[in-house]
């Protein structure tokens, strides 16, 4: 019997039991659809994480202040009272001669208003190198210059969202922004940065609503926007008294973040360990900072992705296994039900192999059709998820091919036993079978 005849026979058989065929296929349909939808979500999340990490740049190291609490906080107050400091940035710059640039930032509390309406923007004091280390680009005007810092100029550069909040669609260059009763002249505008819908990393923040001012200006007029270590009440009072008495030198002024620009991605690992040992010494073992290496995060996220993929494959495997068992069950029932047909076919010249092939092809037709429907459902499901949940999804061709291949394989594996059972039927017995 030709293969086309056998497939046609299989299809006829399936179509004559539409309900049963559909139910039999469901296991495979769900399995394949689940795999495709979940892999699409995973791929989307991975892509998002990659984009975000790439936005940070993989050839940089971020050192951020970290708030610490409890018993550690008291010790932090004693040993390293100012957290991440300007002196840290200076030492890193001096020791890490291999670093292209070391850029400090201060995110500060500020009261920015348009008319009487408060606006949610963030003022960040920084230096001229920030534009390049933050992988941002200028839309118009210029970024902060060394001269602005040297001269303590009240100038600012707006992020895209900040500009929209403050000036709408007007050209902001040359206009004034009032923050904490001080006026800043807008000298530049930064291109919008794509931030993605979901933040993959807590270290990411939306740079679009930043307003950049010279770092020394931010030191004199603004307080840093961060919870410094919170000691117990009594110690806190003592510390406050001490702090008020000792005049705060620029060397001790707190920083939010120090960004170190390196030559390449490979340099981040060694550089990070050097920086870690420097800070460990200057902070006397108090970890009131965290070192973020985007290249490392990238590796981690890839490792996580691998685990996710393995879990995915396991779930898919189980659901396809269950689907396969369902198919085997139905095929066994079918073989019993069609014993007489098998007898007739054998009697008029079908070999055992013809019978095996016929039933295998029927199982294969079920799983392949299930696989196809599953692919459609999976792609549709991924689309629905991205439409309604707003997650980014990416339908991967690989997932489609693999899951279809696996469903075909399920057909072969689970169709085998019933098909062999069918072929072993004795034609004489089968013809007598009512």
């Amino acid at each position, binding site marked *: 019997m030709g293969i086309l005849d056998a497939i046609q026979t299989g299809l006829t058989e399936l179509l004559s039991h539409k309900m049963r065929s559909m139910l039999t296929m469901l296991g495979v349909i769900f399995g394949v659809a689940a795999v495709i939808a979940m892999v699409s979500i995973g791929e989307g999340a991975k892509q998002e994480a990659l984009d975000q990490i790439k936005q940070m740049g993989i050839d940089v190291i971020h050192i951020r202040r970290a708030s610490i609490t409890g018993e550690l906080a008291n010790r932090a107050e004693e040993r390293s009272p100012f957290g991440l400091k300007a002196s840290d940035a200076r030492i890193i710059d001096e020791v890490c001669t291999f670093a292209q640039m070391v850029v400090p930032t201060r995110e500060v509390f500020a009261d920015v208003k348009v008319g009487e309406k408060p606006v949610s923007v963030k003022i960040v004091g920084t230096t001229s190198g920030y534009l390049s280390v933050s992988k941002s680009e200028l839309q118009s005007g210029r970024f902060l210059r060394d001269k602005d810092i040297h001269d303590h100029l009240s100038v600012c550069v707006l992020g895209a969202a900040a500009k929209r909040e403050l000036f709408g669609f007007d050209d902001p260059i040359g206009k004034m922004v009032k923050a904490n009763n001080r006026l800043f002249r807008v000298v530049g505008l930064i291109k919008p940065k794509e931030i993605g819908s979901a933040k993959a990393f807590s270290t990411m923040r939306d740079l679009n609503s930043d307003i950049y001012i010279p770092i020394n200006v931010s030191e004199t007029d603004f307080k840093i926007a961060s919870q410094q270590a919170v000691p117990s009440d009594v110690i806190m009072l003592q510390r406050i008294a001490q702090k008020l008495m000792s005049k705060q030198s620029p060397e001790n002024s707190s920083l939010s973040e120090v960004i170190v620009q390196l030559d390449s991605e490979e340099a981040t690992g060694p550089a990070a360990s050097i920086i870690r040992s420097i800070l460990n010494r200057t902070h006397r073992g108090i970890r009131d900072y965290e070192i973020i290496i985007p290249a490392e995060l990238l590796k981690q996220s890839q490792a996580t992705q691998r685990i996710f993929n393995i879990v995915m494959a396991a779930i898919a495997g189980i659901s396809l296994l269950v689907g396969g068992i369902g198919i085997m069950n139905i095929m066994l029932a079918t073989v019993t039900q069609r014993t007489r*047909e098998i007898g007739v076919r054998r009697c008029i*010249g079908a070999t*055992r192999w013809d019978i095996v092939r016929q039933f295998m092809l029927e199982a294969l037709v079920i799983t392949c059709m299930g696989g196809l429907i599953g692919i459609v459902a999976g792609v549709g499901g991924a689309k629905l998820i991205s439409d309604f949940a707003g997650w980014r999804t990416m339908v991967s061709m690989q997932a489609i091919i693999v899951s279809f291949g696996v469903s075909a394989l399920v057909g072969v594996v689970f169709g085998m036993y019933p098909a062999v059972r069918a072929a072993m039927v004795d034609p004489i017995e089968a013809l007598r079978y009512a």
Partner: protein
Amino acid sequence: MALIEVQDLKKTYKIGTVEVPALNGVTFKVEYGEFVAIMGPSGSGKSTLMNLIGCLDRPTGGKFILDGSDASKLTDAARAEVRNRKIGFVFQSFNLLPKMSAFKNAMLPMMYSSQRRDPKRVREALESVGLGHRFHHTPMQLSGGEQQRVAVARALVNDPPVIFGDEPTGNLDSATGVEIMAIFQRLNNEGKTVIIVTHEPDIAQHAKRILRFRDGLLESDEQVEEQLIAVPRPRE
């Protein structure tokens, strides 16, 4: 050379540890172009013999030569080919595949043969049994007699030298039974060898020779003196 040559053919079934003899050494020949009826009560071994010479089963002893080749020691696949090419089966309960049209049912043996499929040959076979107008009906839509005609067409489609009928009229009323016997007689007149198993003496009288079996042995082998000629009543 005879079409079928059976020498001391034996078959013993094993049920558990007990051996049940069904055929105790049978010897006979059937020449090309004969019309033989095999008769006997239940348990006489006639069904066993039918299974053996139909290449559905293997003998436990003796020799069986079909169309010049020893068919008693063939492999399963080789026996399937013999059934496909050399034998046309017609059963008591028709045994058509219920989901297929008459045409497809009749074509089925071609699908298992290495020959090229020939729809013209199928059409001719169906027309020769008087079913020229019902190609696309399923067995459910056909009467018993019509179903049996489809079965005969199926048996003819690969043009085998011999047609085996296992109680071919057993499920039919007598008038329809006569119609089927008329077809068998016509095929026999056209040169086909026909062998039928039956327990109805009337039906057996349509053959030219009757083999009677009892207790696994050939009891008698006689030519029919007055062969009944089946004349189907004209249909209104």
